[in-house]
């Protein structure tokens, strides 16, 4: 009896071990968590550019921006002579750009320059700016020298960047798997049970009846189950 219980315990232990191993090596398809972090990166969205703009002339750059994209840069006129008249620097959307340029047809865009920029270069001739696109679309950075009565050595440097973002994507690609923890835990529990049963079996007294002892002459028969008769 004792041996049988121990053997049962070992069998339970082996079953638990089998479950644990199976759960480890034949896991179920599992979700894959992908975390993508976009770090703020400054990208030159206008190649470093300089040129001599004629008196009364213009020079503009077109860029495509996404909503929330920030552009930073410097617009400057080298050797700026404020007595020759102001130089304006704009950040415009397409409608205002066309309107400013003397469009055909012309209709003042509703909202005018709302959310856009209209700078007058300071006496230093250099203006540094940081501006965030209020919506996605084409925008135009424009030097307006129409009131500047001499040639202007203009320079523009602009970088663009998005704020840092982190996105987490959980997907279950069929090729991706992970250990089946339920099976592993169940196997471990069954193994513990098996160990307990083995221990119980090993520690309990044997249930086997003692071997029958033939009475010997001169030796009183002893029967542990019943007291000796007097």
């Amino acid at each position: 009896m004792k041996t049988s219980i121990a053997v049962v315990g070992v069998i339970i232990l082996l079953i638990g071990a089998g479950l644990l191993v199976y759960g480890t090596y034949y896991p179920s398809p599992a979700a894959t968590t992908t975390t993508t972090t976009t770090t703020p990166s400054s990208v030159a969205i206008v190649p470093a550019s300089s040129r001599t703009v004629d008196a009364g002339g213009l020079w503009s750059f077109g860029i495509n921006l996404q909503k929330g994209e920030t552009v930073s840069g410097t617009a400057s006129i080298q050797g700026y002579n404020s007595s020759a008249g102001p130089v304006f620097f704009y950040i415009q959307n397409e409608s205002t750009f066309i309107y400013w340029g003397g469009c055909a047809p012309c209709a003042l865009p509703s909202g005018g320059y709302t959310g856009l920029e209209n700078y007058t270069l300071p006496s230093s001739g250099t203006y540094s700016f940081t501006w965030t696109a209020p919506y996605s679309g084409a925008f135009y950075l424009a030097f307006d020298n129409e009131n500047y009565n001499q040639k202007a050595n203009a320079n523009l440097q602009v970088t663009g960047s998005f704020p840092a973002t982190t996105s987490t994507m959980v997907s279950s690609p069929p090729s991706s798997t992970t250990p089946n923890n339920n099976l592993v835990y169940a196997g471990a529990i069954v193994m513990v049970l098996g160990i307990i049963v083995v221990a119980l079996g090993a520690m309990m007294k044997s249930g086997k009846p003692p071997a029958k002892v033939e009475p010997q002459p001169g030796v009183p028969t002893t029967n542990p189950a019943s007291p000796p008769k007097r």
Partner: protein
Amino acid sequence: MSYSRLRGITRSITILLVVVIIIVAGVAGIAFTGALNHSSSTSSTTTTTSTQSLQDVTMGFAGVPDVTDTPGFMLWQNFANQLGLNIHVQYYDGDTTVADAVVAGNVQIGEGGFQAVLAADETQGNSSGSYPFVVFGSYEASNDFGLLVSNSIKNFSDLAGKPVAISSVGSTSYIFCQLLEQNNGLSASQINCAPTGGTPSRYTALLNGKVVGDITEPFYMVAAVESGGYHILATVPSVVPNLLFSTLYTSRTYMTAHPDVVLKLEEATLLADRWAHNESVWVQKEQEEFPGTNATIAGAAWKIWMAMNIWAPNGGLSTSNLNYSTNFYLGIHKVSYYLAPSYWSTLSVQSQGLQSLGNYTACPVLVGCPDSSIPSLNFSIPGVSSAILPGGTLALNPSVTGWDSTSFWRSVA
């Protein structure tokens, strides 16, 4: 309990414990190894920064865009990207400044009147046939200017001595003011092309009665006609229908180094021109860019542009119109000598673009795909088929025969 029995029990327990320990240790080792093998697939963290996989190219446009530039916007904002290009656009004062930028290497591709790059070639080239700049595509295949006059002017004779608004002396509007009036019988002393400023200023001057005519483009023509007091006396395409308006060009060095970029840019241009042949999408874009303008007037102007083939969906370059245009600008002294187009232009890029895109067949080229919900307007315009505007006159190429550009320029000068 006897000693031997106790020893037997102890031995059994020991054996069982050893078995259990071996099993547990084995399983634990196997499980640990498995866990290690799987740990890398449970989660991954990737840090990315935005990258640019498109080919960068810089491009200069002549002048701040107007309504005829809607395909130009589509070119650099949409179709170029679809073809793998990232166009960095710059807008310059005009044809000459763009050509200067190409010559200086500030931009790689130029858009503008080809006479400027032809002049640059003639200046910087040499007699051995090495000319550094080459026209490879058309941007606007025809000049869309016309002469808009008040109804008091019935014919060209009525214009004698009366002011017609132009931008400035020497400008394109000045050239065509001279051309249209001289070509219709007015002498130099009778021609009065009055510098008035940009397109809106000229239009305002006409409405205010300061001038009796205005060299302008179709949207203003239609708007004025619809107001009831004006009509169109002539258009440039009706007089010089083979005159190219604006082209795409680059340096021969860049074209040799980046033939793929040049080809993609030509293809993007063709796609943009084809896009413009759908009145519905064109008017929608026009309304976005010019909010508040009249869609019916825009649609009528679109029909005129279709008839003029300003946005040529199968390309606007041909040997004949390159030669014609060269002679025209030679005649008006915008270039100094005749240089055969083979030295400064190529048709191969346009041909390759058409080969890869196929010919445009979606709609008739000179009609486009009209939007039936946008009404047609009933007035006549020289150079525009009556199929486009009910009541219009079919007057393409009526008076170019016998036109002598040399004598024209002598009279202007």
